[in-house]
C-alpha cells in the first residue's frame, strides 16, 4: 500500500495526470459540440492524427508554434466541413461517414509523412511548447500553454452553450430540429458550424501530442484517444464541466497504471495495466447508460420539410 501513497503525494504524478488529460479535454469538447448539435463525429480519431501531423509539419517547416496549432485547427475544420457536407448536406449515415473520415485522414497523414520523409530511421523533431514556469500555481506551472487553453475552454464552452443565443440555437438543433427551424434557425448552418468548430478542437487535440507532449510525429501515436473521447462525452452527459471531470478521472487512471507498471513487481503482465483505461471506459459507459441524456436528435439526419 505504501507504493500507492508514494505515487499519490508525488507532484510529478499529478503533472502527468494533467498532461494526459489535455488532449482528452480538447477532443471531448470537440465531440461534445458536434453531438449537442445532433451529429455523431467518429472522424475524431483520424482528425487527431491529421491535426498532429499537419501542426507538427508546419512547425518543422519553420512556422511559430502557435501557427502550428492554428494549422492543426484548420486541418480539423476542413475534415469537419467534409463530415458536415456528407452528414448534414447529404444526410448520409453518420457512423459510416465518420469512420470514412477517420480512415481517410489517417491515410493522408501517413502518406504525407512518408512523402515528406521517405527515409528516416529516427523521427525528425521540433522544439515543443515550453512549460509555463512563470505561473505560480504548482502542477500547472509544469504544463504548457495548451493545457491552460484547454482548461479555459471548458467554462467558455459551458457559458456559450447555456447562456448565449448561439448556444441555445445549437442545443435546439440537437434536440428538436423541426422546432428550431420553426424559430427561424437554419438547422444545416448551425450543425455545420458546430461540426467545423468541434473538428477544429479535435485537430488541436492532435497537435498537443506532437507540439507539447512529444516533439515528433509517430505512427499510431493517437492510439485510440479519439475513441476514448467519444466514450467520455457519454460519461459526461454532454456537459463541458463533467467532460473535464471525466477527462481528469480517465487521465488519473492512465497515469496510475503507468506508475504501477514501472514500480510493479512484474507479477502481472504489463498489458493488463495498459488495458485498464479501456476497460474503465466501457465500465463507465455501462454505469451511466441508464440515465444517459442523449441529445434527442443525435444521429437523426434532418431534411427540411420532411417529418
Amino acid at each position, binding site marked *: 500500500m505504501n507504493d500507492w501513497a508514494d505515487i499519490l503525494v508525488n507532484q510529478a504524478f499529478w503533472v502527468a495526470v494533467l498532461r494526459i488529460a489535455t488532449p482528452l479535454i480538447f477532443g471531448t469538447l470537440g465531440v461534445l459540440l458536434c453531438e449537442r448539435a445532433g451529429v455523431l463525429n*467518429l472522424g475524431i480519431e483520424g482528425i487527431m492524427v491529421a491535426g498532429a501531423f499537419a501542426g507538427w509539419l508546419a512547425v518543422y517547416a519553420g512556422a511559430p508554434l502557435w501557427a502550428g496549432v492554428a494549422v492543426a485547427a484548420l486541418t480539423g475544420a476542413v475534415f469537419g466541413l*467534409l463530415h458536415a457536407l*456528407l452528414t448534414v*448536406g*447529404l*444526410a*448520409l*449515415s453518420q*457512423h*459510416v*461517414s465518420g*469512420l*470514412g*473520415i477517420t*480512415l*481517410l485522414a*489517417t*491515410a*493522408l497523414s*501517413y*502518406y504525407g509523412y*512518408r*512523402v515528406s520523409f*521517405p527515409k528516416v530511421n529516427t523521427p525528425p523533431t521540433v522544439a515543443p511548447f515550453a512549460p509555463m514556469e512563470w505561473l505560480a500555481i504548482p502542477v500547472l506551472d509544469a504544463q504548457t500553454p495548451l493545457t491552460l487553453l484547454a482548461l479555459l475552454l471548458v467554462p467558455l464552452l459551458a457559458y456559450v452553450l447555456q447562456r448565449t443565443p448561439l448556444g441555445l440555437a445549437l442545443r435546439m438543433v440537437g434536440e428538436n430540429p423541426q422546432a428550431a427551424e420553426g424559430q427561424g434557425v437554419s438547422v*444545416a448552418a448551425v450543425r455545420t458550424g458546430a461540426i467545423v468548430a468541434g473538428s477544429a478542437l479535435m485537430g488541436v487535440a492532435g497537435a498537443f501530442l506532437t507540439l507539447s507532449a512529444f516533439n515528433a510525429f509517430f505512427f499510431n501515436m493517437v492510439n*485510440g484517444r479519439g*475513441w*476514448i473521447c*467519444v*466514450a467520455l462525452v*457519454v460519461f459526461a452527459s454532454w456537459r463541458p464541466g463533467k467532460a473535464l471531470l471525466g477527462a481528469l478521472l480517465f487521465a488519473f487512471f492512465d497515469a496510475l497504471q503507468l506508475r504501477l507498471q514501472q514500480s510493479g513487481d512484474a507479477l502481472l*503482465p504489463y*498489458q*493488463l495495466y*495498459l*488495458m485498464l483505461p*479501456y*476497460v474503465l*471506459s*466501457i465500465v463507465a*459507459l*455501462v454505469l451511466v*447508460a*441508464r440515465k*444517459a441524456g442523449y441529445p434527442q436528435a443525435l444521429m437523426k439526419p434532418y*431534411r*427540411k*420539410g420532411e417529418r
Partner: protein
Amino acid sequence: MRLERRHETSRTALLLAPVGAVGFTLLVSALLVLWAGAPVGRTYALLLQGGFGSVFAWSETLTRATPLILTGLAATVAFKARLFNIGAEGQFYGGALAAVAVGGLHGGTGFTLPPWLLFPLMMAAAACVGALLLLGPALMKNKLGVDEVVTTLLMNFIVLLAVSALLDGPMKDPTAMGWPQSVSLQPELELSRMVAQTRVHTGLLWAGALAGLAWVLFKYTVAGFDIRALGANARAAAFAGVPVTRTMVLVALISGALAGLAGAIEVAGRTSYVTLDLSPGYGYSGIVIAMLAGLHPLGVLAAGVFVAGVQVGADTMSRAIGVPTYIADVIVAASLIAVLVATLLTQYRVRWK
C-alpha cells in the same frame, strides 16, 4: 441545398455509380502521386499490374482478399441489422489465437486428436471466440442502450493487449528467439495450396462459400428477413412481431463468428502462427468493403478483391517507384466516401436554392 427523392432509380446509374466513384477517387489521388514527384500514368499502371497484371499478382491479391472477404461479410451481416460492429479487428485476433490454442503444437505436442476431428474443433473454437467477443457489446446495446460503436472499438484495444500478453506468456513459442510469436499450428491442420508455387489457399473457397451462405440467409430465410427488417426500421419490426433481442443476438453471433473465422483461416492458410502484425487492419478494411459492396454478400467478393488488389498493387508499385504504400489506404478510404455519395445521388437529386 436540399435533397429531393428521384421517382425512379435507373439500373444503369446504379451500376455506373461505383465505377464513377472509383474513377473520381483515382483522379483526386493523382494529385497525391504528383506531390510525391512520380509520373501518374506509370504509377497507376504499376499499381494495376502489381495487383492484377499476372498470375502471381492475382495469386497475391486473392490471398490478401481471403481475410478481407470474411471481415467484409462480418461487417455486412452486422450493418444490415444496424449493429455497428467496428470490433472485427479484435474478433479476428481472438479467432486466430483460439485456432492456435486448439490446433497448435504446444512444446512439440498438441491435442492428440486425429486431424479430421481437430480441424472442425479448431474452426469452431475460433468462431465461438469471435462470436462471444461481439455478444457482450450487442447485449449492452440491446439491454442498456450503450452505443456499440464505442464499446466494440474499445474492445479492439483490449483484445489486442490480451493477445500481446498471451504471446509473451502462455502461448509464446519458446523457439522463437524471444520474439512475441505464438506456437505453430500442427502441420496437418494447415489449409492446402490451391495453385502450386503461390500462396492462394483453400481459405478462399471458404470465403466464397460463406458469402454464398450469407446471400441465401438474407434472401431465402426468415431469420434473414428479420435481420433486414430490424435494420430497416427497428420499431416497425418489433411491432410486426420480429423478435428483436433474439435477432440482435443472432446477428452478433454470426458477425463475430465470421470475423473469428477470418483470423483462423488466415493462420491456417498463410502464417501458421499468430504475431501482433498478423492483420494490417483487416477488421477496419472489412467495414469499407461492406459499404463498397452496398451490404450485398456477393458484392463483398468483388469489393474484397478490389481492395486487396489495390493494397497488393501499391506494395509492388511502391517498391518500383517509391510512392508510399499508404496511397492504397487513401484510395480505399476515398472510394468509400465517393461510393456513398454516388449511390445517394442515384436515389436523390440535389436542388440548390
